[in-house]
């Protein structure tokens, strides 16, 4: 049985990109493979007003599967682990190049490469209890899917340094204050607020292609 890690569903003029490996919705190799296919081959061709991206269940995503990552890297010293990682990284960046608004709807935990996925979106809406962090330094790593660059642009260089070096968790209200998220809503309103934002942007941009994030 090989169910997808990501679902793409259409809801009228808005597509839903759903991370579908609850409860954690980890960004493991399956998810990255599917994300890469979707982001490079399917999503650019979609005729939609925009996309909302969220996790199935309580959480957006807990981030990478570290055990799996270690296994990949500690395998035979060939180029394949480098290629694997670069492939995953470019899947996230491909999300940032889509020609319509992409809004991340964040509930629960949104950590590490999960947060980097949300950062690649044009906007982020979070629930009141959402928790966000880039904790890669805890395992001697750094955000590699755009986290250092995109976080800096959103919250400023100093705040980005602090957040990434400490790996600390941010609650929704502080995330809003510093510009990491654009709106905080109740869990009930999360998806509808995200769709509303997509339509609003679409209305204002009147079909003009949005540039790369």
């Amino acid at each position, binding site marked *: 049985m090989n169910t997808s890690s990501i679902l793409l569903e259409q809801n009228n003029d808005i597509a839903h990109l759903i991370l579908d490996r609850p409860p954690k919705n980890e960004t493991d190799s399956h998810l990255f493979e599917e994300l890469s296919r979707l982001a490079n081959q399917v999503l650019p061709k979609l005729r939609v007003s925009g996309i909302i991206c969220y996790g199935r269940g309580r959480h957006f995503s807990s981030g990478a599967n570290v055990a799996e*990552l*270690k296994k990949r*890297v*500690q395998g035979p010293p060939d180029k394949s*682990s*480098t290629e694997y*990682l*670069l492939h995953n*990284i470019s899947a996230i*960046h491909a999300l940032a190049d889509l020609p319509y608004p992409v809004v991340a709807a964040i509930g629960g935990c949104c950590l590490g490469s999960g947060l980097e996925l949300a950062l690649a979106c044009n906007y982020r809406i979070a629930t009141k209890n959402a928790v966000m962090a880039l904790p890669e*330094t805890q*395992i*001697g*790593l*750094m*955000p*590699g899917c*755009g*986290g*250092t*660059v995109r976080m*800096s*642009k959103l919250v*400023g*260089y*100093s705040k*980005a*340094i*602090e957040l*990434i*070096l*400490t790996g600390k968790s941010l609650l929704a209200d502080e995330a809003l204050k510093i510009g990491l998220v654009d709106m905080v809503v109740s869990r009930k309103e999360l998806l509808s607020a995200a769709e509303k934002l997509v339509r609003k942007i679409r209305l204002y941009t009147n079909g003009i292609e949005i540039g*790369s994030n």
Partner: protein
Amino acid sequence: MKLIYAKDKNIGWITLSNPPSNALVHPAFEDLRTLKLFCADPDLLGIIIKGDGRHFCSGADLESLEALKKDPEIFAQALAQGKKLLEAVTFSTIPVVAMIHGSCLGAGLEIALSCHFRIASENAILGFPESSLGLMPGFGGTVLIQEPSMRKTAIDLIVSGRMVTGPEAFLLGIVDRTAPTFDLQEIAQSFLNSMVAKHPPRVIRAIMESIHNARRLSQKEALKREASLFLDLVKQSLGENP
């Protein structure tokens, strides 16, 4: 004004020294290589900059300024050299914290703004008094101040020349933390350590470099380099022991 360097375990200390005000007598107040070498010291995880004595730095020494101004070309060159020093601080690949006490004015504030973080004591006084002398901040201050605070704050402070206390500077976003005067050093150290103490230098330096790239390279190039820095860390931190 000269720089005094010290190391306390993994934390580097740079003291701005021309007591009591630590005023700058010349914009190029240090040899660039010396400063860069200190920032690149492989033992260091972070740096704190402070003033010698009661004050952080009250800015340019006015008499010296008068003398320099007489030759605009030399003055321009001196400023350019000085700004390279501030740039070296900003692009240091370990975090630099300005520990601000007493006066932090004009070029002193510009030095503080070139740091990644600012911690100010309650008795700190910050501002850009240049306008009241018919001048403007010439050390990058007009640009630097817009990062942490809002543009209206920047315009207000620069045009009015008014001074703010440490706590007010915190409210305006110019400093990141305030501290009671007696606790300033402890708070600055623990703030810096909370960011760096647990990490090997290579992790800190990779992250800092990537964040710097976000401001000095194109988005595309910065992302490319981030991936490359990340791959290096993966090999070093997760790979088999070399």
